[in-house]
């Protein structure tokens, strides 16, 4: 109906009528009115997408600069966190799970590490998914408790596992994360009993590659009870307290490294996500502009037709 072209030679009855009505009651010219309205709405959509694009570009810049700082601190923390001898690490982490071995039936204490802010791609949801999968796989009779770091994981896990969440930590990312804060976290974790401890975080490999990695540790007593550490000479009087302290120290230094790695992964993921969002916004703006121009030309054409046919009818 909108494109009904009047035949140039003979005035169409329809256009005559429309011309007459148009003079009297412009509001009844619904097709034209609708077209102008959609022109305006297209224009406002373009401006809103443009402003969103500005925001996503800015967020990408911020994430990129934060990534640089976070990556430096993370790389500096790696030698510190993993300085202990391989034998100590092996005892801490326990023997690797063999295929077909009976599943672990005790109390597992999960520490999922996530960010506070969103718009960071899949880092938080992948940690939450991994934790949920691990919880599904455990046999009957085993229990779990969660000590959640970061608001995003807390929001996701408290819905399903509200009774299992013993504590959650927010706003650790407002200032650069220090070893002292990691020690406080370790202290809080060790106030709870558990048979196995599982830290779940995003390990940073490169700007485009970070994977959810679970680190499993045994109980605080595992070091003093193990025979595999007999090769090391330790001070007789200090033996048992030293191993307990060592477990705490290892936990704190690993937590320190895990939070830094997760923070770096979060910034890298946010940078990529915002970059994709800016590109999508750009595509949207282009498509909308084309639509707008087409619509504008259609409006002009229709207007011209009506004027011409109206003029001809006079």
């Amino acid at each position, binding site marked *: 109906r909108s494109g009904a072209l009047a035949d140039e030679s003979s005035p169409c009855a329809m256009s005559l009528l429309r011309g007459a009505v148009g003079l009297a009651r412009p509001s009844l010219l619904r097709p034209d009115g609708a077209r102008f309205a959609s022109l305006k709405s297209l224009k406002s959509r373009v401006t809103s997408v443009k402003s969103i694009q500005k925001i996503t570009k800015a967020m990408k810049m911020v994430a990129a600069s934060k990534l640089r700082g976070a990556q430096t601190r993370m790389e500096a923390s790696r030698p510190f966190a993993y300085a202990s001898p391989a034998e100590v690490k092996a005892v801490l982490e326990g023997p690797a799970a063999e295929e077909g071995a009976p599943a672990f039936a005790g109390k597992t204490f999960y520490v999922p590490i996530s960010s506070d802010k969103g718009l960071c791609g899949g880092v938080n949801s992948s940690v939450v998914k991994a934790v949920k999968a691990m919880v599904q796989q455990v046999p009957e009779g085993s229990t779990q408790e969660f000590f959640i770091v970061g608001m995003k994981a807390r929001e996701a896990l408290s819905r399903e596992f509200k009774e299992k969440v013993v504590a959650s930590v927010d706003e650790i990312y407002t200032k650069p994360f220090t*070893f002292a804060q990691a020690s406080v976290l370790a202290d809080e974790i060790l106030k709870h009993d558990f048979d196995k401890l599982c830290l779940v975080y995003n390990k940073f490999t490169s700007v485009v590659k970070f994977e959810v990695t679970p680190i499993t540790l045994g109980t605080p007593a595992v070091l003093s009870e193990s025979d595999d550490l007999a090769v090391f000479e330790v001070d007789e009087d200090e033996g048992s307290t030293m191993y307990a302290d060592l477990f705490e120290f290892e936990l704190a230094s690993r937590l320190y490294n895990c939070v830094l790695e997760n923070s770096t992964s979060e910034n890298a993921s946010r940078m990529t996500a915002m970059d994709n969002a800016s590109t999508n916004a750009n595509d949207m703006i282009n498509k909308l502009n084309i639509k707008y121009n087409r619509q504008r030309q259609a409006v002009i054409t229709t207007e011209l037709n009506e004027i011409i046919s109206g003029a001809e009818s006079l």
Partner: protein
Amino acid sequence: GLVMSTKARPRERRATVMFRNVLMRAARGLRSEAAAETDAFANKLKFNFSIPTATLYDKSPVQMVILPGSSGVFGVLKDHVPTIAALKPGVVAVQEVEGDSELKQFFVSGGFAYVKPDSSLDIQAVEAVPLDELDVDEVKKGLASYTNAAASASDDVEKAEAEIGLEVYQAMAAALNVA
């Protein structure tokens, strides 16, 4: 290996012979480099010293390290027996070259030290600063304030915190030879 056509012209044959000599010289150089690396640790201790924010020594060959273990100061040379030791606040002194009388000294607040079965020494310290970066006046002030805090602490937690601070400042004062 080198593929040489049997009908190579004299100039080309010379080139391939020269190339082979270059390769052999390079291989000898690489072999001696590898030997030199193990040589670097033949009489020296492999030393790693890290804090949460930095690595002070990374696989460095040093002569000897003296550490403040929790039950006493001890020294580590090459081929020390494997050990795990907790560290108390004190000075880590590093002798880099044999016969050096100048030791590099760092004040550490605590941590752990490991001598691994492969005879390398790893120190993980919570904080470590070169001794000459400690401010004598600040140490005196801190010592005084923690002495007061320890004396006037009301409950066990406060007393424990004050005693920890006191121990660290006393160690710093001792390291700086300050009263």
